[in-house]
């Protein structure tokens, strides 16, 4: 469980990056953290991970204050940053060195994920490509079985088969105890695994809702009927697409990307749908 209470952070006084953010994130879910560039997604992940300390407000992760960086907290939380710098030792040596720090580390799972990602454990990490290094570290992070997993742009640098493998691994990773937060621009890569959306805009958390809840309020169609209020539309190669108010209990795949575009381009939608959060 992650609890944020009136959390705020800034790099420069008077220019808040995160302002008065309050929410509770529950285990058993994969949260998609969305927002434009520079809106504070990575900063929020870093505050949750204990890499940055909040300027005001409180944060608690599984009963720990992240900024204290206590051993029980660090051994039950993994953060996979966008850019990874790993030591110049072999993958096998890396596992042997660090697995001891994570009590729930599953060596079999690590082995399987390396195989799935086609990463050779005898290879020196600094000889691997950026994508390979990322896959290796993601395999390690998933194998630690920590209760909190924070992923910043996890699919950056991954090839298409690896993205698929990653989605598969992530889906099998989630349990009633684990909480995953993914910050990504590449929504299409992770569309199928996310079950809760968090949207940051202008230093505020403007959307905090499960996909099922959002789908009960909003629908997506290429041919809206009269009774449906069109909230947003996009013209794509294959025609026009509409985001509409779901007044008819319609069942449609929730298009996270279109929803995100809609609230960024038409923020008033958030006021039109007061039950969104």
């Amino acid at each position, binding site marked *: 469980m992650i609890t944020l209470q009136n959390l705020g952070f800034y790099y420069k006084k008077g220019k808040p990056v995160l302002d008065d953010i309050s929410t509770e994130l529950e285990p058993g879910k994969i949260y998609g953290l969305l927002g434009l560039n520079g809106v504070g997604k990575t900063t929020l992940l870093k505050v949750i991970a204990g890499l940055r300390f909040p300027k005001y407000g409180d944060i608690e992760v599984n009963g720990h204050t992240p900024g204290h*960086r206590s051993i029980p907290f660090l051994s039950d939380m993994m953060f996979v940053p966008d850019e990874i*710098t790993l*030591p*110049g*030792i072999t993958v096998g040596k890396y596992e042997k060195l*660090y697995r*001891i720090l*994570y009590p729930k580390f599953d060596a079999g799972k690590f082995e399987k994920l390396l195989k799935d990602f086609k990463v050779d454990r005898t290879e020196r990490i600094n000889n691997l490509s950026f994508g390979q290094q990322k896959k290796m570290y993601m395999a390690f992070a998933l194998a630690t079985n920590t209760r909190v997993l924070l992923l910043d742009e996890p699919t950056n640098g991954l090839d298409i088969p690896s993205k698929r493998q990653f989605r598969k691994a992530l889906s099998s990773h989630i349990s009633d105890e684990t909480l995953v937060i993914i910050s990504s621009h590449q929504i299409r890569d992770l569309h199928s695994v996310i079950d809760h959306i968090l949207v940051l805009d202008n230093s505020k958390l403007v959307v905090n809702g499960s996909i099922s809840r959002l789908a009960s309020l909003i629908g997506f169609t290429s041919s809206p009927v009269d009774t449906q209020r069109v909230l947003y539309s996009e013209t794509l190669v294959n025609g026009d697409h509409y985001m509409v108010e779901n007044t008819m209990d319609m069942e449609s795949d929730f298009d996270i990307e279109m929803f995100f575009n809609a609230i960024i381009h038409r923020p008033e939608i958030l006021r039109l749908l007061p039950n969104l959060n």
Partner: protein
Amino acid sequence: MNTFSFTRVSLLLKELWSYNKWLIISVPPVMIILFWLYYMLPDSIYHKLGNDYAKSENWRFLTIINNRTFLRAAILGVIPVYLYVCFGGYLRQLKTNSLSVLTPVSALERVFTIWIFSIGLTLVLLVFFLLTDELFAYIHRSLFWDETIRTLERNGELYYDFSPDFVFSTLIQADFPVGLLVGSFLSTLPVLFLTGYAMPKAAILFYPLLGVAVFILLFPFAPYTVVGNYQLNISASPLFLLVYSAFIAGIHFLWMVAFYFRIKENEV
């Protein structure tokens, strides 16, 4: 869970060893190369012996017994270089790499491990320095001792008083304060950590200079100080040495505390 565990410390030591294995393995050959280079300098004994003026036996003999070799202590300058190569990148990672910061080890364990490892590395360098010094003194004795004694006898010098710093002696035998020089680098170690952490580029210059400065400050208080051909016995009062050592230890400790909080409160 405790903030200090020897299991995690041993893991961190293994981590440092795996990052620096080849650097440490390079110590013996590097020492031999540096000593060899030192004795091959233009002003060195081998250079002089090879010159035309050293052809006559007397010249050769004078060259051998008058050659000053204290400058080889400068080879100990590799200590700050090795420490910087070993820890420069590591400290940068601790400051900027989120994976290093989030490794489940405490700041106290980090600081302790870095401290222990750097002392260990310094001692490894010192041991190989002394062994190589002994090796070269042995080689010199094998090459020149008999010849020197014969020449001395021919010249009627049966009880010649050898200078303590000639080529047959090691620095230890010559009473050079090797321990003081190494101790100076050790006492200022936390400065390397702090500058290596906060200002990596300045560390390579600042740390060795400070080490040498401390050595120069303490040099007059070394129990035996050799100047030229004379062995002076200048010793400060034991109380003064005790107070001075306590002062250095106190400063060392405070620097370590500063380094600890720098790591603990670092934001990435």
